[in-house]
């Protein structure tokens, strides 16, 4: 199972790169949806060890793949498919995201006792999973900082939340499902409300460009 999880994890990092770098919002969204499915598959693989995780995989499918993607699709369909020019290009992003992934792996593999609260989390494939989760969080923050398109910023938030969700597989496998449902409900609502506010921004300045937010001050 370990090689499968490693391959899926690498694919998750690649999809996060495509989601951040694709200039077409639809393509970026497809990359995000692909990542959501990969996450469901990763959690599904872990569910072979912990049956309770099957429900987590189902929760991730419903919220990350279905609900959030549907909300984002509606927002993309309403506006321009082309992303506002970002602050950093694909080469910079490739270098930064690659460096973030290597740093996360190095941090987790060299200092696993510092980060992993349980003996299980120190072992493979749980350890690699923590590294992937950290990478997704870092890529999400990178997207928020370097993208000017508000929808891309929301995609960055979604990447951070995917990282947080994935980390639970290694760090809190035994956590009760109702708590997990509370966590993912917050995420869906946050995306929903952000999209309402972005629609308000688009209606006023005719663009999703966050560098033009000062125009809102009149």
């Amino acid at each position, binding site marked *: 199972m370990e090689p499968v999880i490693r391959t899926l994890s690498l694919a998750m990092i690649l999809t996060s790169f495509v989601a951040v770098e694709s200039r077409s919002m639809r393509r970026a969204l497809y990359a995000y949806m692909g990542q959501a499915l990969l996450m469901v598959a990763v959690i599904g693989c872990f569910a072979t060890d912990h049956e309770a995780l099957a429900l987590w995989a189902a929760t991730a499918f419903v919220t990350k793949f279905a609900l959030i993607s549907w909300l984002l699709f509606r927002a993309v369909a309403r506006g321009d498919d082309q992303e506002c020019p970002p602050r950093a290009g694909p080469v910079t992003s490739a270098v930064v995201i690659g460096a973030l992934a290597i740093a996360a792996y190095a941090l987790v593999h060299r200092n696993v*006792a*510092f*980060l992993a*609260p*349980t003996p299980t*989390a120190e072992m493979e494939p749980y350890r690699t999973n923590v590294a992937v989760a950290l990478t997704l*969080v870092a890529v999400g*923050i990178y997207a*928020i900082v370097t993208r000017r398109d*508000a929808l891309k*910023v929301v995609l960055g*938030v979604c990447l*951070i*939340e995917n990282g*947080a969700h994935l*980390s*639970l597989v290694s*760090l*809190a496998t*035994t*956590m*009760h499902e109702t*708590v997990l449902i*509370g*966590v993912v*409900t*917050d995420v869906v*609502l*946050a995306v929903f*409300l*952000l999209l*309402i*506010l*972005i629609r*308000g*921004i688009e209606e*006023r*300045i005719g663009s999703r460009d966050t560098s033009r*937010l000062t*125009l*809102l*001050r*009149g």
Partner: protein
Amino acid sequence: MLPIAVLALPLLTAAAVWLTRGVRVRAWVWVAGSAVSLVLAAVQASRVVSDGPITALGGELLVDGLAALMALLVGFLAFACAVYAAGYLPGVHPLEASRREVLERRTPMFQALFPVLQATLLWVVMTNNIVLLWVALEATTLASALLVSFYWDGRAIEAGYKYLLLLTVGITAAFFGCVLLYSAAAPHLGSHSALLISNLRNVADKIPRDIAVLATVLLLIGFGTKAGLAPFHPWVADAYAEAPAVMSAFLGSVISKVPFIGIIRVWQIMGPQHPELNTLLLWLGAFTIVVGGFLALAQDELKRMHAYSSVAQYGYVALALGTGGYLGYYAAALFMVSHALTKGLLFFTAGSVIYATKGQRSMSALGGLGKRLPVTAACSLAGALSLAGLPPFSGFAGKAAVVFAAATAAQWVPLGIAVAMSLITMAYMIGMTQRVFRGAAPAGLEMDTVHEVPATMRVAMMLLAAAMLAVGLLPGLLDPLLDLAART
């Protein structure tokens, strides 16, 4: 049953408000619902004082001294906000004639969503589940985002967007902190018991030092962002300034205080085991006092000055907590009560000035309003004196407690910073009073059209001023609850 009733009543109020027709009728349904909520919170507090902590839902809800005190504070401020809004919200429409239709459409949403926000705050205060504490705190952000951007003009939408984005991202750090604490405690307590905060203290010494420190720092970043501690404060000024005054008051008084519940809960568990965490919090507090104080001093816009001044005051709470021990927690709890009353009042008075002058927010364009707005001016002066830490108001008791806690812990440098920055607070608050209410009116201000605000707004201001005075003159009034809160 009582904690469930306290939690459920604001939700019932929200449903009743939503189903009622007519902006004024809705306003009074809201006032009635929040009055009953306040009574329930008071009964709950009295039960906790007489009989000890109350639990519900199998220990998922725990009302100890701290929770009872904060639930009472949330209930009182929510009631004051409902009374203020009964005059403020309908009256806002004539000021915004060009967008009257938009505001009229959004007012029912505001009136119904506000009690929902109150319920989420009470959930934060009373939950005993470490991960649901995070969920509830994020829920307070979600419930308040549309209230911050109520005016739905460019500035309000920008403020709402930044508020929601920065807080959602910032509080993710706290999520990792909560999960780390839970998973480190689970092997010792079992999977369900490890979620309960009241159980975590029993195994605090068994959690590896590195994990404990990392989790606590992550929690501080997340909850500190939500509270508005420096350097996580950049969202504060826009959100406080662009929200309607009633929302600014709720933000500055209680929404900013509930994240400290999370900080206190975690510090009471981890602080005694790892004293370096107390030092971190102490200096973060001192840093926040300095940053917020000087930013407030530089502002010309009334609500922005109050916003940055709030940041500075949150620093006093962190500093008191950082001194550790009973006195530090007692001082932090008393200061939070005092600041909630004081800042709620000051945002109400700022809203009244803006309301009466038809939208004038800049202090340089205001002046001589004392004669036209005597109640607002008197309440603003009382709030200014309290914030500056002068007797006989609650601010004096609050700041004296913080100073006493820092002196007892022999933290002389942070104490010196806190006292020196109090003088800065006094300077900008006296400056505000002078510029807005005294002197001559500037040329552009049409004084003939300036009249004192509606009665409900004045009643709400006087209610908070009276509470501030009561806590200042009789600091022992809240002692049974403060004592329990500090011992929690």
